[in-house]
């Protein structure tokens, strides 16, 4: 396939994945491809990245798609046929043989190696950090252990699992550490040992990635780039749904959260300072007119200084929405200098204030852990009961709500058919400046089954769908 066709398919896929690639950027990429040869794959990748990806959070998605579309280009990236070793591998074998004398496995080709031998070779490669060897072994083990069947529409996770299980990679770290301890003459200090461990971990991680990309290349060769791209398509970090995030996605969400909050805080602060001009400041104008001989040449205006809102966050932390509540709490606390006062409450069927957990430590992760373990939120059976929780909230903290307070209610309003007690929300909204409800469920699920978000929502200033970071960010921005 000519490069141009490949490129257009590639860019269509980037757009499908949600990256905003404009026409000019597309043209720039074409221009870049002219001056960077496709054979230099790293440079080629960075050239495309520099012209097409303008947000670092999108880099991983870009990388995956790049690999799918361009991994089969260039001679050294061709797939080896089963049974015939590629040149590279043969070379490695010879090097090995030369290095160790004719002792083991020499001349036989890698097919005659037993799995144990492959494993011990892998261990040696990991010990010495031999990159080329690791790559060769990754290829070899995929060919042997993955048991790939042509034509199956899968993403390769299963093959990865099979390959890694056969190599017993889980215990590899411990083994490497043991071997390392034996090898070194004197005892390692704790610090050195820790550094060694980090080093091995990163090498193992690297090997895993080699295996993964090898599997992917084989799948692409089997099924074509487009089909593969479709199978592997993943949402961008800001579009990942809180409720259905996998562990990996959770991690990347967490990483995306911090820069996002910083950005948002900066933007909010700026918005506060640079509001519209207020009415004429007479006093100030007269004061400045003195330097013009009494002519008010430079009118001065009052800048509005809107008060920072007080915030009360009431979050459902029952199992079904825990991930969502966690994120929202982290988010609120990360930008809390934008609010004059933030108080937070969590509930399942009982309710408890958790503000002090956040005050006590600077580490948000730790605070959330304490919330989840120490807060007293179970009243009867530990199933959500919004009605009871709200009632208690009103009883205990209702008097603290003032006309400056904005109340945020977080949850899916799945009340397990308990009494709704929606009068509480009505009373709250009478007192507070605003009451908003954030619901992590897709809109189409609202008011189905035991969800009674409509009943509560009627008394609030708005119910918002809040399924991903993008929506959460948009909401907070409108809040101040």
């Amino acid at each position, binding site marked *: 396939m000519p490069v141009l066709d490949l490129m257009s398919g590639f860019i269509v896929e980037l757009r499908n994945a949600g990256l905003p690639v404009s026409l000019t950027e597309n043209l720039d990429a074409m221009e870049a491809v002219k001056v960077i040869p496709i054979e230099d794959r790293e440079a080629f990748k960075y050239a495309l990245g520099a012209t097409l990806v303008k947000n670092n959070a999108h880099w991983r998605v870009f990388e995956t798609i790049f690999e799918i579309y361009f991994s089969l280009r260039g001679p050294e990236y061709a797939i080896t046929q089963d049974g015939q070793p590629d040149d590279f591998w043969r070379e490695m074998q010879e090097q090995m043989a030369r290095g160790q004398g004719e002792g083991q496995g020499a001349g036989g080709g890698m097919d005659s190696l037993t799995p144990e031998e492959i494993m011990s070779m892998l261990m040696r490669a990991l010990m010495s950090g031999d990159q080329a060897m690791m790559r060769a072994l990754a290829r070899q083990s995929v060919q042997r252990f993955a048991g790939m069947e042509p034509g199956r529409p899968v993403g390769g996770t299963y093959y990865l699992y099979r390959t890694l299980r056969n190599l017993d990679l889980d215990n590899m770290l411990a083994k490497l550490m043991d071997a390392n301890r034996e090898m070194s003459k004197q005892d390692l200090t704790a*610090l050195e040992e820790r550094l060694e461990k980090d080093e091995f971990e990163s090498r193992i991680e690297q090997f895993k990635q080699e295996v993964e990309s090898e599997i992917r290349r084989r799948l692409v060769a089997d099924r074509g780039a487009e089909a593969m791209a479709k199978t592997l398509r993943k949402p961008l970090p800001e579009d990942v749904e809180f409720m259905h995030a996998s562990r990996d996605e959770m991690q990347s969400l967490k990483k995306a959260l911090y820069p996002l909050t910083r950005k948002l805080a900066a933007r909010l602060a700026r918005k506060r300072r640079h509001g519209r001009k207020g009415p004429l400041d007479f006093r100030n104008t007269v004061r400045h007119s003195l330097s013009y001989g009494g002519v008010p040449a430079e009118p001065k205006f009052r800048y509005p200084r809107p008060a920072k809102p007080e915030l009360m966050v009431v979050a459902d932390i029952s199992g079904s929405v825990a991930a969502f509540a966690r994120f929202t709490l982290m988010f609120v606390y990360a930008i809390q200098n934008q609010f004059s006062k933030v108080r937070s409450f969590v509930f399942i069927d009982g309710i408890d204030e958790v503000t002090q957990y956040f005050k006590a430590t600077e580490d948000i992760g730790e605070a959330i852990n304490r919330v989840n373990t120490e807060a007293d939120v179970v009243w009867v059976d530990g199933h959500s009961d919004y009605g009871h929780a709200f009632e208690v909230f009103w009883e205990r903290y209702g008097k603290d709500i003032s006309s400056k307070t904005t109340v945020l209610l977080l949850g899916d309003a799945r009340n397990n058919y308990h009494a709704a007690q929606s009068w509480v929300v009505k009373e709250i909204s009478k007192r507070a400046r605003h009451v908003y409800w954030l619901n992590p469920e897709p809109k189409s699920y609202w008011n189905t089954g035991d969800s009674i978000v409509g009943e509560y929502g009627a008394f609030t200033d708005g119910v918002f769908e809040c399924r991903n970071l993008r929506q959460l960010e948009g909401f907070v921005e409108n809040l101040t």
Partner: protein
Amino acid sequence: MRVKPRFNDVATVRAGLKKVNYLADDGIAGVVFLADRLGKPVLIEGPAGTGKTQLAKSVAELTGARLIRLQCYEGLDESKALYEWNYKKQLLRIQADKNSDSWSEIHDDIFSEEFLLTRPLLEAITSEDPVVLLIDEVDRVELETEALLLEILSEYQVSIPELGTITAKQIPLVFLTSNNTRELSEALKRRCLYLHVDYPDLEREKEIVLNKVPDISQNLADQIARIVRSIRQLDLKKPPSVSETLDWARTLMLLGIETIDAEEAKETLHILLKYQTDIAKAAKELSVTK
């Protein structure tokens, strides 16, 4: 306006940057090369202290160009970034010729280049000798001010109502840096090549230390790079930057330490980390026995 490319290929850029003591990785060298070939500005983003500004400086040094720097801040405006009329001089001109010249002549005269004060952006494109333009921390200006940059970034020209359009005599290399405190506008991003400079990997960091700290031993540099990598993997408020790594290396040199043990590492952590909670966390991590 085609100009002779400054670099032959990516490898040349990389080698050249190394000569001026900047260790680039593939991505950095590739984007610099591309910026030259395509004649496009480069927008550099990344955590603080990873050498974003230094890259522009080093490229200037490498190409033998003059570095023109525009430091952005909130409230930056046209008269500080682009150009300004020299009012005082204009006033003098009018008063000096009070009797002789006709009105229209003076009028034309006082809006000529003689009375123009060039600010960094205009200076960069009117310069005869090669320049590298560095627009530092562009995320600090307001969204509206960004628009000031658009014309110069895409066309390399500045339009002055009284004078007409001034076009660049040569295309300068332009670098914009951003600390990512806000999302830059699409219009700006579209006109630039994007480069994300992250913390360097182990090998590169070690080389940077070896390069920038005189007389440091291989062994110590290696150890420093590895400890810093381990610390960066922790969940910290502010992971140590490259400049902090270098500070730490220099400190250890001053203290005459050859190999770091856990105790010494803990005592000097405050050079790497700037938050008390981070320091406590790292100290705990480093002294764990397993």
